[in-house]
């Protein structure tokens, strides 16, 4: 039971987020438990992710409130109604919304341990996300050319900060999705991967729901 078990155990070469230290002595304890030996029976990683998202609510809440407070304070430069391109943004919003669907499909494939499908859906999700970010870059450039710089007025500073923060979140999400896809390719065995896909999915959906709010409050309701 001592060294033997170490040798015998086929170590998985990839244990993302796997830091759990509560390994008691049972044989089953080898499985660096995604929730199998916790007090609540819930996965540590998932609990951490939900907490993080709860915390993010206050982050985006603050940015949104700043925007709401300042949206009408325009001393110079174009007004939002003059530059917003609602059809364009609607399409990007739709793209982001649909990326949530593909993310769900990635998660279900991972839960079925269907590696190929998982990779496919992850790739599509990442592409949709990248499209969204690309749209945002295009939009920012257009606004900038119409005279709305970051420092132009209170509306512009808070608009760019809010949407920019969201954009950075999407970008980080895209990086995570692509990395995850790469890791799955590099490492054949499925193992506990379903949970990682699920965690990144949670993050991804959260970024989507933030945009649901931003789209309405920032774009559809005129300042």
């Amino acid at each position, binding site marked *: 039971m001592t060294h033997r078990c170490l040798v015998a155990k086929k170590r998985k070469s990839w244990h993302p987020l796997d830091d759990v230290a509560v390994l008691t002595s*049972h044989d*089953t304890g080898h499985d660096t438990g995604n929730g199998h030996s916790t007090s609540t029976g819930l996965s540590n990683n998932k609990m951490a992710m939900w907490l993080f998202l709860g915390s993010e609510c206050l982050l985006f809440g603050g940015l949104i409130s700043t925007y709401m407070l300042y949206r009408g304070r325009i001393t110079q430069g174009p007004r939002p109604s003059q530059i917003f391109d609602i059809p364009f943004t609607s399409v990007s919003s739709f793209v982001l919304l649909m990326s*949530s669907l593909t993310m769900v499909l990635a998660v279900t494939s991972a839960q079925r341990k269907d590696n190929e499908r998982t990779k496919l859906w992850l790739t599509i999700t990442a592409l949709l996300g990248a499209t969204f970010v690309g749209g945002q870059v295009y939009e920012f450039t257009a606004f900038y050319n119409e005279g709305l710089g970051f420092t132009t007025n209170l509306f512009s500073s808070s608009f760019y900060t809010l949407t920019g923060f969201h954009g950075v979140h999407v970008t980080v999400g895209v990086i995570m999705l692509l990395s995850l896809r790469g890791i799955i390719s590099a490492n054949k065995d499925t193992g506990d991967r379903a949970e990682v896909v699920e965690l990144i999915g949670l993050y991804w959906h959260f970024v989507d729901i933030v945009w649901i*709010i931003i789209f309405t409050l920032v774009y559809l309701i005129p300042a």
Partner: protein
Amino acid sequence: MNATATDTHEQHDSHAPGLSDATAIKIALILAAMTALEVSTYYVDFGAFFMPVLMVLMVVKFFTVVSYFMHLKFEHQMFKLLFYTGLGLALFVYFVALATFKFFS
């Protein structure tokens, strides 16, 4: 090791009834329809309903994604508590703060 260890029989993660792909697609279609309705306010004049419609749609979309795509509806109480505490506090503090700026009047 003694018998009370919690891990003798593996209890499985509360992977409650997962979302089937078909349901997911249905939900996505509903979300898309709601988005279309939202966007239509840009073209059609809803008059006094404008704000309430947008707000209701926003909230419904938000909770649909949280409950189904993020699966929170089927998760353990604890996860709901963690997330909704954050959400609730955010709504509370920022509503109050904006109220002190006379934002709503």
